[in-house]
């Protein structure tokens, strides 16, 4: 093979290549020249007005990206100051009065496939606020989180929900998981559910005894291939939270509530698929996590841990960051199936980023020498 090196040495670049490249590459970001002309008083005044406007707008923008402390705690203190913060964040402040319960979506951080939001749930007056306060302060008793479901409704009002389901509510035991799960699965909004898989979580953040308001951090992620969270107004169905005290559990309301808002942040999830003779890959990167599935891959990739160690994010500038440097661990599953008489394995792995990522800059996911180019989710 030394002959190969010798042959390649003879394969020299064209003499004029350096000049051509130099010209094009340096022109790629060369600042445009301008002609200096003396400015009239009118133009100076216009400039002053424009500067004043720009300052006003930038001050406004700075206020807009001042995230709530809950998000700062979740995503890290630098997250709201990162270049990506503005595209992820939305000051929502939409309140819905649902009978005696008031729910407010205060702020959201998200992309087209995942969302985190701060939800305030103001308890109805009949609720036992003393019991809530005692449970909140207790080491043994607890305030339960409400079950929260997400729907791509367009516009559905509290009155619509009441008209559709109101008759069922008095008979429902909101402390009984089986009972409220059946309601979550089948209610007046069911037709608007997100298709494909989804995941969600709710965690209690604070209780304000003065206003009787519980604050939650709610997360929702859809794996739908056809729907985005940003396509249309998003409706949250919020079932009654509960409080556990003295061994008993009681619901803090006797009906669900809904709140609808239009996600207005601009970040979009990135997705991609690729297939080669060795394996099929599908990957998705959202602001908070990466998930990847390898089907019929080599035995090296049949293990979630090996897959986690093999994945790199490829950035627009050509740089790469190993997933292991951006995450603390992973979750996943491995399975096998028969295809064309052969046993294939499927490995799915997902990992949460330590901080939200500017996913618009992620060009591809690389697994070993397999590259999965990413595009903004449809």
């Amino acid at each position, binding site marked *: *093979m*030394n*002959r*190969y*090196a*010798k*042959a*390649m040495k*003879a*394969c*020299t*670049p*064209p003499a004029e*290549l*350096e000049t*051509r*490249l*130099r010209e*094009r*590459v*340096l022109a*790629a*970001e060369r600042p445009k020249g301008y002609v200096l002309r003396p400015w009239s008083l009118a133009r100076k005044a216009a400039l002053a007005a424009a500067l004043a406007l720009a300052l006003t707008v930038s001050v406004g923008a700075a206020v807009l990206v001042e995230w709530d402390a809950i998000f700062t705690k979740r995503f890290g203190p630098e997250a709201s100051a990162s270049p990506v913060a503005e595209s992820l964040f939305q000051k929502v402040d939409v309140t819905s009065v649902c009978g005696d319960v008031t729910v407010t979506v205060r702020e959201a951080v998200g992309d087209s496939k995942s969302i985190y939001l701060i939800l305030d749930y103001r308890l109805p007056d009949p609720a036992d606020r003393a019991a809530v306060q005692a449970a909140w302060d207790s080491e043994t008793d607890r305030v339960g989180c409400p079950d929260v479901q997400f729907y791509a409704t367009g516009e559905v009002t509290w009155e619509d929900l009441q008209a559709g389901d109101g008759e069922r509510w008095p008979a429902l035991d909101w402390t009984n998981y089986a009972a409220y799960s059946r309601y979550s699965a089948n209610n007046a909004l069911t037709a608007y559910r997100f298709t494909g898989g989804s995941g969600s979580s709710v965690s209690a953040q604070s209780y304000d005894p003065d206003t009787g308001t519980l604050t939650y951090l709610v997360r929702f992620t859809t794996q739908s291939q056809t729907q985005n969270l940003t396509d249309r107004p998003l409706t949250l169905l919020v079932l009654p939270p509960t409080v556990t005290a003295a061994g008993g559990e009681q619901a803090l309301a006797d009906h669900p509530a809904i709140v609808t808002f239009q996600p207005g942040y601009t970040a979009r999830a990135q997705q991609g698929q*690729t297939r080669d003779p060795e394996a099929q890959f599908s990957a998705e990167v959202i602001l908070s996590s990466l998930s990847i599935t390898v089907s019929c891959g080599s035995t*090296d990739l049949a293990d979630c841990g090996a897959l986690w160690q*093999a994945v*790199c994010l*490829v950035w*627009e*500038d*050509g*740089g*790469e960051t190993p997933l292991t440097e951006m995450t603390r661990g992973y979750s996943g599953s491995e399975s096998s199936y028969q295809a064309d008489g052969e046993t294939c394995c499927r490995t799915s792995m997902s990992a949460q980023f330590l901080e939200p990522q500017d996913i618009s800059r992620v060009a*591809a996911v*690389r*697994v*070993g*020498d397999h*590259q999965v*180019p990413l595009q903004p989710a449809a």
Partner: protein
Amino acid sequence: MEQREQVFDRVYREYGPALYRFCLMQMKNAADAEDVMQEVFVKRLYQAPPFQTPEHERRWLFRVALNQCRDEWKRSRRTELPLEAAALVAVPEPERALLEQVAALPEKLRTVLHLHYCEGYSQQEIASLLGITVSAVKMRMKRGREALRSSWEGAE
């Protein structure tokens, strides 16, 4: 701090010919190789991270070049073509046949062979550059050599 012109001159002087040869073997013709090089240099000048060592910079350039070649292949959905004869005018006849045979190998095989035999990268370094295991590099080199041997014997 280096000015952009100085960066371009230095990077081209140190890595330009090697990157051109690598891109040529990947893209199979000089025009496409030049397009890829342009992208690589634009990224190097305007978007590159700070480099710890010259070797770090070299490895980054080859990695970006390989990614760019693969993107071009995917984007254009091109089929495997023979190495363009015009790119080999300066290469003597017996060596030209060898280059054509290497260029005809599957991309993964010719990449490891080129990086090892032309660029002098060790198997460990290739594994690190490509993000694969050393055993996978060894396997590809073995398969590549076997494929070349059989095509060489077939040609005789």
